[in-house]
């Protein structure tokens, strides 16, 4: 068999690692969009997180501090977006695109003297006997802590949106901001908090790339991961566990693409690299056909500016 050289356990393990950055960015953006805001600056927040995490980790010699720094940096850039779109009422799409370009530029500037350095190693999480289980241990229980943190965030977001009162308010704000305002909820405050959470998640995702997956700092290293995360939110029709599945699917495609090349299969890699976007376009067409139930899950006030009146 042509795929004989690919080991399933290694493949799954690699897939989980490859999926984690986009999963983190996507789950953050999912919360933002559920609050009714479209932040196209995910790529910018990711790359700023990547460089900030890298710098902090190198300077302190501590990868954990690096991740915290990355989350703070992503959150700060998101705060700028919140200021632009929620307070100054700037257009969300234009602000988001500007945020991406700004993040790419700023990260290149900050990272100039860090190219070619190795970051401190992030230890693997010791799960004791679990890691020794044949196959399962190698595939699922031999990762760094961030892989599990990402999954925990997904579960947390799912619980938050489905069961908590704050999550209900957040969905209400995203569904119909005028009605939410009429009931006395603070639309802008809820949205600003969601935006900052989204930025922190994107920053974490970026740092995962620069500190664990690559691990090195190179300019423009996110290479479109932020856009895949944005596509993933739509693909998941704003549901956390579908985002998880989608991230592993897209992550799987990335890993498979590398493995297939190594195995000498003659499929142009471009087909695989474009597949996440193709799938997303198909999902978008399916959703906008109006018949699908998925369309009901799209936040009703997404990308509509909120002006308080009366």
């Amino acid at each position: 068999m042509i795929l004989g050289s690919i080991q399933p356990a290694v493949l799954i393990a690699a897939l989980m690692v490859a999926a984690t950055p986009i999963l983190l960015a996507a789950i953050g953006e999912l919360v933002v969009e559920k609050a009714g805001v479209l932040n196209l600056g995910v790529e910018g927040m990711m790359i700023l997180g990547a460089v900030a995490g890298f710098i902090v980790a190198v300077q302190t010699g501590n990868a954990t501090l690096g991740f915290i720094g990355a989350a703070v940096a992503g959150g700060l850039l998101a705060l700028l977006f919140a200021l632009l779109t929620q307070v100054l009422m700037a257009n969300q799409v234009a602000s988001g695109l500007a945020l991406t370009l700004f993040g790419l530029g700023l990260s290149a500037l900050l990272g100039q003297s860090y190219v070619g350095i190795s970051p401190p190693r992030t230890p693997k999480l010791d799960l004791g006997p679990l890691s020794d289980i044949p196959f399962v241990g190698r595939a699922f229980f031999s990762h760094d802590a961030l892989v599990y943190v990402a999954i925990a965030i997904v579960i947390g977001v799912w619980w938050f949106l489905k069961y908590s009162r704050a999550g209900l308010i957040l969905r209400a704000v995203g569904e119909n901001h005028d009605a939410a305002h009429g009931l006395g909820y603070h639309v802008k405050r809820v949205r600003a908090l969601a935006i900052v959470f989204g930025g922190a998640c994107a920053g974490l995702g970026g740092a995962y790339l620069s500190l664990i997956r690559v691990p090195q700092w190179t300019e423009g290293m996110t290479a479109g991961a932020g856009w895949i995360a944005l596509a993933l939110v739509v693909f998941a029709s704003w549901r956390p566990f579908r985002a998880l599945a989608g991230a592993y699917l897209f992550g799987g495609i990335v890993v498979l693409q590398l493995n297939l090349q190594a195995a000498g299969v003659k499929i142009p890699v471009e087909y695989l690299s474009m597949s996440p976007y193709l799938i997303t376009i198909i999902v978008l067409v399916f959703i906008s056909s109006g018949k699908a139930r998925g369309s009901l899950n799209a936040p009703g006030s997404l990308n509509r500016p909120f002006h308080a009146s009366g």
Partner: protein
Amino acid sequence: MTASAPLLQLSGLTKAYPGVVANDDVSFNIGPGQIHALLGENGAGKSTLVKMVYGLVKPDAGEMRLRGQAFAPGQPSDARKSGIAMVFQHFSLFDALDVAENVALGMENPPPLRDLAKRIRDVSEAYGLPLDPTRLVGELSAGERQRVEIIRCLLQDPKLLIMDEPTSVLTPQEVDILFRTLRKLSDEGTAILYISHKLDEIRALCSEATILRGGKKVATCDPREKSARDLAELMVGQLLTPPERPARPFGDVVLQVDGLSLASNNPFGTSLKDINFALRAGEVLGIAGVAGNGQDELLLVLSGELASPSDRVCLLGKPVGQLGPNGRRELGLVAAPEERLGHAAAPDMSLTENAYLSGAHRKGLAKNGFIDWDKTRGFAESVIARFDVRTPGPHVVARALSGGNLQKFVIGREIEQNPAVIIVNQPTWGVDASAAATIRQALLDLASQGAGVVVISQDLDELLEVADSFAALNEGRLTTPRPAKGLTVDEIGLMMGGAHGMHVAEEVAQ
């Protein structure tokens, strides 16, 4: 009831917005258990006043006292904690959330959703307003949506329930059920502040009425002791002449719709099912129905914004189902949709530009593919002059006009094109009484000149005033048109589907 100490005292409430004083020194009292009407035209300041009571707007001057204590809610949750609940005119509901979640959002300390679902069932049955807590609100009828709002309020045991124009979306039978619920609440000691401009309702329900005009209180009276005419004069401040409708013979059929079915393009929309009617020259066909029963879809498919099989819609004998709006305009069919800003008119374009958008073809406003600005301006000016649109000039953007003035402009723009058929949806929604009278008279004049007119409206009084024949839309089906003369409100109510979900709708239109 009136002997006891007042529940809520308003004194000297004043609120000004840039350019307009919404409320000017308004004072009145509401007693416990009293059903108190707040009566006034659109723009009289009713909504601003209740928003102050509910904590959404802060008054510039004046004070409120609740049970004798100073009361100044900073936000709606303060008002809710003090026992004030509100049912909004434009529902404050969330389509994609279920009934229980919607109710929880309007409560201060909601119980867990499972307990809440049970309480919703209990309360809704106790008050004769059945409701399934697990259904998505987007799938409910307008009457059921209102029940969600009411039950959301009742679950908090309010001392004062504010209802803003609650019956504008209900069939007459649903209004009866609502009134029974309100009387029951009143007997239990809940005061109700009932906002409306419908005089008959207020005379049937309320024991005291405060009338606002131009932001000022003009009277507090017992509506049961006043005639509807007296109340109307107090409310409007002038006498209104009902539109004239000279008897006239009908001509040939100008618009024929046969077996038209169409799926809605909106997931929460209503699909049209087997629509049939024939409209003759000089006839005004009134189409009633509670909002969301297919009115928007019907307007779209008649105006040409939605295509249908070619022979389902015939204009002057020609099949036009596949023609777009401009093609139909050229043949003589014009339309004015419900939504003024964004659908009938482009908000940020000037009146001249908006006049061009609709009138280009019939008025020949383009020359060799270029806009003839002089002619277009002249067209806009003629609409402004004939329909008394209050605006500095045609260069003003549509957004800057008040609702009534813009409505006069968008309807006038279509009427000035001398159409053979005109379709209007909610022609006087949110328009003051004198502007509404102008619009209705213009539609009748057009009909007497031989045009066919279709008026889709949720205002039964309006339809009875202008329509020659009458049909109702109910869940996307149109009843067979009947002559409007001699129809009673009860019969019309049944045509509109009776009380949704209360008992099986009876078929009366055969």
